[in-house]
């Protein structure tokens, strides 16, 4: 019996010829990512465990993103603490404020996450890196500490759900609408402990940036990870970074727990309503809901593709007077490209506040916290109670196009109204 991409990666990393779902394997980790919120706790536990030196400093990436620039003294202390660890351990893959951006964007953009490798991050959205065919999982700080010391982690080999997306996703519909549709069908815990492999014609036509929301939100249906088989698009991505990568794909006779098919031509603009990511409906059914804030950014959607589609909708128009639109490009590289493509100019002219790359608004840490009873439409990936601020505030999750259109109208709006 053949193996899925994820099974092959786990087999290789645990020096076995094959693995089966349910088996426990101990794997060598190719890359460990820490950020400034979960990192300090991991470092404290690393020391508590009695470790002195990280197993391989070149396999550790430290990326500041959650609350940058720091909004308070505690946060500044966390970064100071991590900088000192980085220096002491001679960690070269360190992305400070202004040098990197959102960790999950950096891991892919800079080619740190490679096809066929195992990437572990002390952040739940680490699964994003599955977009380039890595097996990427989120962990907590103690698990990360153990990896810092040993370079290893145990895995229970997950069974795999295959999601096949046929057709072609055509703007203003985006991959975000596709993944919301998928989560709506599978549910918030429908893929618990499983791997989710995205495939099909629609996926192969997507850029890496468009694929990333798919794998990014795998965790929102409970999945251990999301994966996409490396293909021409993947190789071109690494070629542009002067990196050669190995070919690892799923075997044609690999065993999937189930295959679910989605026809992208039947998917319209989608929205997840408060307070669960699995509560997905058509934007049409939520139209008219007044908003106070619109947020374009996060590890789900702050990429150049996202800024382009938003700028196209906002160009030559003004956002509603009652609404503030926050834009946080996913990385400094994306920011620069958006400057070069004159997207930032269009966004600012429409009334957007363009801020630096950070996770801040998505989790109510900084740069856009919601007051009592306020409503935000957001391109991010979570809409739990109090996620972006006060516990009475509400978050709706949608695509960059829907967020831009809604910012113009002052209420939740189908982006097709502004698409010509």
């Amino acid at each position, binding site marked *: 019996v053949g193996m899925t991409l994820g099974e092959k990666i786990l087999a290789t990393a645990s020096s076995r010829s094959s693995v089966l779902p349910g088996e426990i394997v101990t794997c060598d980790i190719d890359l460990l990512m820490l950020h400034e919120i979960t990192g300090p706790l991991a470092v404290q536990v690393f020391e508590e465990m009695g470790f002195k030196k990280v197993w391989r400093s070149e396999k550790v990436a430290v990326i500041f993103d959650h609350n940058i620039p720091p909004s308070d003294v505690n946060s500044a202390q966390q970064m100071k603490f991590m900088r000192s660890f980085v220096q002491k351990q001679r960690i070269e893959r360190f992305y400070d404020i202004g040098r990197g951006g959102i960790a999950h964007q950096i891991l892919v953009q800079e080619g740190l996450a490679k096809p066929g490798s195992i990437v572990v991050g002390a952040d739940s959205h680490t699964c994003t890196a599955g977009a380039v065919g890595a097996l990427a999982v989120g962990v907590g700080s*103690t698990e990360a500490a*153990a990896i810092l010391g040993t370079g290893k982690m145990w895995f229970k080999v997950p069974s795999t759900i295959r999601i096949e997306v046929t057709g072609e996703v055509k703007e203003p519909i985006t991959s975000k609408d596709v993944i919301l549709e998928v989560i709506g069908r599978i549910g918030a*815990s429908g893929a618990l402990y499983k791997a989710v492999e995205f495939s099909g014609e629609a996926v192969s036509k997507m850029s890496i940036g468009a694929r990333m929301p798919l794998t990014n939100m795998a965790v929102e249906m409970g999945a251990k990870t999301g994966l996409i088989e490396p293909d021409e698009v993947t190789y071109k991505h690494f070629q542009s970074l002067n990196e050669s990568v190995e070919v690892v794909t799923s075997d044609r006779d690999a065993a999937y727990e189930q295959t679910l098919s989605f026809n992208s031509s039947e998917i319209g603009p989608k929205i997840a309503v408060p307070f669960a990511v699995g509560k997905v409906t058509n934007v049409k059914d939520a139209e008219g809901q007044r908003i106070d804030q619109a947020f374009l950014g996060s590890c789900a959607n702050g990429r150049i593709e996202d800024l382009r589609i938003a700028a196209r909708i906002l160009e030559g128009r003004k956002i509603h007077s009652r609404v503030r639109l926050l834009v946080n490009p996913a990385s400094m590289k994306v920011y620069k490209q958006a400057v070069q493509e004159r997207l930032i100019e269009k966004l600012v002219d429409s009334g957007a506040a363009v801020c630096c790359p950070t996770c801040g608004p998505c*989790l109510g840490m900084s740069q856009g916290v919601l007051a009592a009873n306020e409503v935000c439409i957001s391109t991010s990936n979570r809409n739990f109670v109090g996620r972006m601020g006060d516990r009475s505030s509400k978050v709706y999750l949608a695509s960059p196009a829907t967020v831009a259109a809604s910012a113009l109208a002052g209420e939740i709006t189908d982006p097709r109204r502004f698409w010509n």
Partner: protein
Amino acid sequence: LNAIVGTVLKLGDDIDTDAIIAARYLTSMDTSSLTEHVMENFDPTFKMRLKENKIIVAGRNFGCGSSREHAPLVLKAAGVQAIVAENFARIFFRNSINIGLPALEAPNASSSFNEGDRVRIEIDRLEVRNLTKGICIGIREFSEPVLSILRAGGLVRYLKAKGKW
């Protein structure tokens, strides 16, 4: 492992880690100082409920969302002795075991307990007994190394004793 005895604090499905501890408190490196904010987004009366009831019984997908280990840490620091749920989000499950807070999967948990019921958990016998109702439900067997980590009291002690994986 010793039996855990107490009364039940009942929660529903999909309790997320933002509900357990909001991100705005994660800038503190002193996790024990966070207990005053435990479950504050979800239920401002939670701290009162926790005074009496220290064994959480919940439904599906407990601990979904962010990987913040602060979530099980704050529950543990606030006095929670064990969490029995129909299933757990995987990162929360690992975090919980890694810090020595028993996370027990029991498929019938939700329908078998009400808030305030007296409960006795025997991990070695894989059972959770509702002393108030006089019923007993099974908990899912642990695979290795999960059980050994739990027996050691968490991953720090496990690795210190063993020296490696």
